[in-house]
């Protein structure tokens, strides 16, 4: 990926009267009445089909993807997205089906969705699953809304507070606010576990629940989870499991067995549906017995050999509908294909080999002289390096390392998250990478550190081989340019 002449905007390729005319339907004279008509045609580009194909092909080539590069973006589980998942989800019978078509014409897709619901129940240890949330954050919303509905259903209106550890994903507190809850943050101990004393102090009759990620965003397993669950339940609260890191424990330990009442799963992480440059995700939710009546609708039911959707009429206490139809069905089909190909043993191997890869990479990096943020702890499927020593001694930051990695042909790990570890890289190699790829990554990070000692400026000015150098984010926000506008004639 060499520096290049910038690819023009598609609008700059446009010429009046040009078009991909093979895509036009036959001309019709029908129109909307005069009073409703727009005065100017919309400012859309006019390009040939080849121009469009070449333009978007060239744009694609400016990206790193899993298919082209090792992409160890922590907390995002950037593993191989099997091509079969895509091609089978796009079979014509699945692809052309209207969501409101009669159930008789949807038995095939519903059979897949029902099996998916069942498999997800078993891998999470939950009593029921709804597939409708369209991303992890919407799954979180569903979870907290169910917790809220549960307390209200019992007439307990005082419970308006959600406890969130300071290491949590930003979506956790944002979700609690969206559900009308107040957020109470608790600290993490130096070893990465939740501060139980602080938790006890936070628990009260206004506690609605706690949101936890386990393994946490610090890449370690919360060892006292059973004690935490007992304390939260004793205080009348419920436990929410953020499934962002489910990959680490798939088939080895189940959130339901840990004492969680509700969980969301990121199917685009753990079950390998594509990340698509920022979605679509899928945030299926699972619940224990207590929350079953509140699951978002619709859910698939099997009656004998037939499948049908259950909606608000059958589940009147449901928190309702979160998507216009039944969630990101095409994503769900991809997850179904993945799970059927993996099977029960394959799912356990996901946890085993992602954990093996993470611990191997951590061990090699530590042996190469890098500092782990939690050196006494076993890594889960991801781990944190802290570069505060390098920042202090060479003035080279985690961001500099991240940018220089791009020049070495590696996507950067997650940087500056979690917020409580200074100069951190959150590294998640996933199970689908070879040992050689991990070794190459260690070499690259080591080479950057050597370079930082001899030529810090080269690291600080990286990347050098990308289509652009570091971008001016301040200018982007101050001189806001977020849409191309046609020149005024």
């Amino acid at each position, binding site marked *: 990926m060499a520096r290049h002449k910038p690819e023009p905007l598609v609008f700059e390729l446009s010429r009046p009267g040009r078009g991909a005319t093979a895509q036009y339907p036959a001309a019709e004279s029908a129109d909307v009445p005069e009073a409703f008509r727009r005065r100017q045609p919309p400012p859309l580009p006019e390009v040939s089909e080849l121009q469009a*194909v070449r333009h978007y092909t060239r*744009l694609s080539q400016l990206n790193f993807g899993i298919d082209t590069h090792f992409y160890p973006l922590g907390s995002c589980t950037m593993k191989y997205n099997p091509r079969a998942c895509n091609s089978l989800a796009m079979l014509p019978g*699945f692809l052309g089906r209207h969501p409101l078509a009669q159930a008789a014409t949807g038995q095939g897709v519903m059979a897949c969705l029902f099996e998916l619901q069942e498999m997800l129940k078993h891998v999470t240890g939950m009593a029921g699953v709804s597939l409708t949330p369209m991303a992890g954050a919407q799954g979180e919303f569903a979870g907290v809304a169910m917790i809220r509905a549960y307390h209200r259903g019992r007439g307990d209106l005082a419970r308006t507070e959600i406890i969130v550890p300071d290491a949590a994903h930003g*979506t956790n507190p*944002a979700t609690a606010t969206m559900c009308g809850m107040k957020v109470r943050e608790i600290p993490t101990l130096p070893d990465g576990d939740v501060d139980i004393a602080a938790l006890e102090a936070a628990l009260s009759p206004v506690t609605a629940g706690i949101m936890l990620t386990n393994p946490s965003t610090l890449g370690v397993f919360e060892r006292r989870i059973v004690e935490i669950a007992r304390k939260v339940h004793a205080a009348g609260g419920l436990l929410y499991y953020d499934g962002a890191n489910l990959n680490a424990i798939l088939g080895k330990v189940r959130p339901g067995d840990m004492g969680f009442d509700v969980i969301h799963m990121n199917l685009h992480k753990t079950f390998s549906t594509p990340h*698509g440059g920022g979605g679509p995700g899928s945030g299926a939710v699972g619940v224990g017995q207590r929350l079953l009546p509140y699951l978002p609708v619709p859910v698939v039911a099997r009656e004998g050999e037939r499948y049908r959707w259950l909606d608000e009429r059958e589940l009147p206490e449901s928190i309702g509908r979160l998507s216009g139809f039944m969630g990101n069905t095409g994503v769900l089909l991809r997850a179904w294909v993945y799970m059927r190909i993996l099977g029960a043993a394959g799912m356990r191997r996901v946890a085993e080999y992602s954990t093996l890869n993470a611990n191997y990479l951590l061990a090699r990096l530590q042996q190469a002289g890098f500092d782990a943020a939690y050196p006494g702890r076993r890594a889960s499927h991801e781990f944190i390096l802290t570069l505060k020593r390098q920042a202090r001694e060479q003035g080279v930051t985690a961001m500099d390392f991240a940018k220089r990695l791009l020049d070495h042909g590696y996507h950067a790990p997650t940087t500056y998250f979690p917020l409580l570890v200074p100069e951190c890289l959150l590294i998640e190699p996933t199970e689908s990478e070879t040992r050689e790829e991990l070794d190459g990554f260690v070499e690259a990070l080591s080479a950057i550190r050597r370079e930082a000692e001899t030529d810090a400026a080269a690291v600080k000015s990286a990347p050098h081989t990308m289509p652009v150098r*570091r971008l001016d984010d301040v200018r982007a926000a101050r001189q806001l340019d977020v849409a191309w506008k046609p020149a005024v004639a």
Partner: protein
Amino acid sequence: MPYIPHTSDDVRTMLDRIGVGTIDDLFDEIPKALRIDALEGVPDALPEMDVARLAGVRAAADGQPLNFIGAGAYEHHIPAPVWALVTRGEIYSAYTPYQAEASQGTLQIMYEYQSMIAGLNAMDVSNASLYDGASALAEACLMAVRAHRRSKSARILMPSTVNPACRRVARAITEGQGLRLDAVPYDAATGRIDPKSLAAYAGEDITAIVVPQPNFFGQLEDADALTRWARANGALVIAAVNPVPLALLSPPGEWGDGGADISCGDAQPFGVPLSSGGPYVGFMACRMEHVRQMPGRIAGRTVDTEGTPGFTLTLQAREQHIRRAKATSNICTNQGLLMTAATIHLALLGPAGLARVARACIARTNDLVAALGRLPGVRAAFAGPRFHEAVLKLDRPVAPLLESLAAEGIIGGFDLARDYPELGDALLVCATETRTRADIEVYASALGRALGRPKAA
């Protein structure tokens, strides 16, 4: 081992490096009592070939019926290049462009998409997608409450001509924050909101009114009059639009005096297959003065350290990973892949192609209403201009008719009995540019045969 590349030699070498004996030793921090030895209830692995066969059988069982149904999801022709490009690994397997320098493709596509959506709506700015049209409407209601600082009521007028599923979603998502969504009835003769009926709300603190265009019945609302009413009464305007007819229709940014404040909808008709309901792609555009209240990702154009133009995520101070509990929304991952499909689709169609699609939709729907209206016991419920859907009144319950049509490979429309019982036996039908006159004849004769049978007792 599917999708795991390790040889036994790799495993040995790696465990030695870590200094443990077995992979299971790596799980030693998890309390033993919690660990399970096997996953119950999950089937055994199948090779790709076998899963392909199973999926093939199921997809074939679902068939490829003729769709005459819309109600929020629309069958349109998808140009072959769209998904050939979207499924390129560099797009399909990338993530949110956190590393802008290695994501210029995705970021430029976001910027082009935002430009197209803003242009279609005649709005200043667009975000880079929300989940779907229904959740976009919910987010628009929450955004209006934040944006309208003088209004204290958090009260939104939600006409009953807005898609009922979208209204349900808006209720579920806004309920926790105490929004009040007041139903506004429609005029029984025209199937649209009578602007005069809003007089009942004059003088009250209304945060915003939702204006659907076209509305759920396919009818065109008097968006100009409704927008003027909102302006005069201090309410914001949330447009809930189908983006296809915007090729022809007055855009939300130009409604009434000064235009709508927020426009939202589903861009599914742009290159996104029906796929049993998703993934689709919610869009949202707004006036510049509201941009800091907008949820979702936004790409901006800037320059790099050498002055070369480039793209980056911007206004991130609105978002959950920075603002946490004070963010505009919890949204994080959205619908990037479908946003890309919509962008490529619009680039291929351009203004002329999109206008042709919109005109063909109107023409085929007129044909459909005429053909079905000739059958005994069938008549159009509403007069007045419409886009590509229409309500038909029938002389008997709709559900059994739809079942019998489905058995003949025809999805005949959406039964309005549940959501609009006051309409009696009413059916919402749709024809896009993908329906031919011959398709319409097939439907009309099948419905004619079904109606020819005696009514069920």
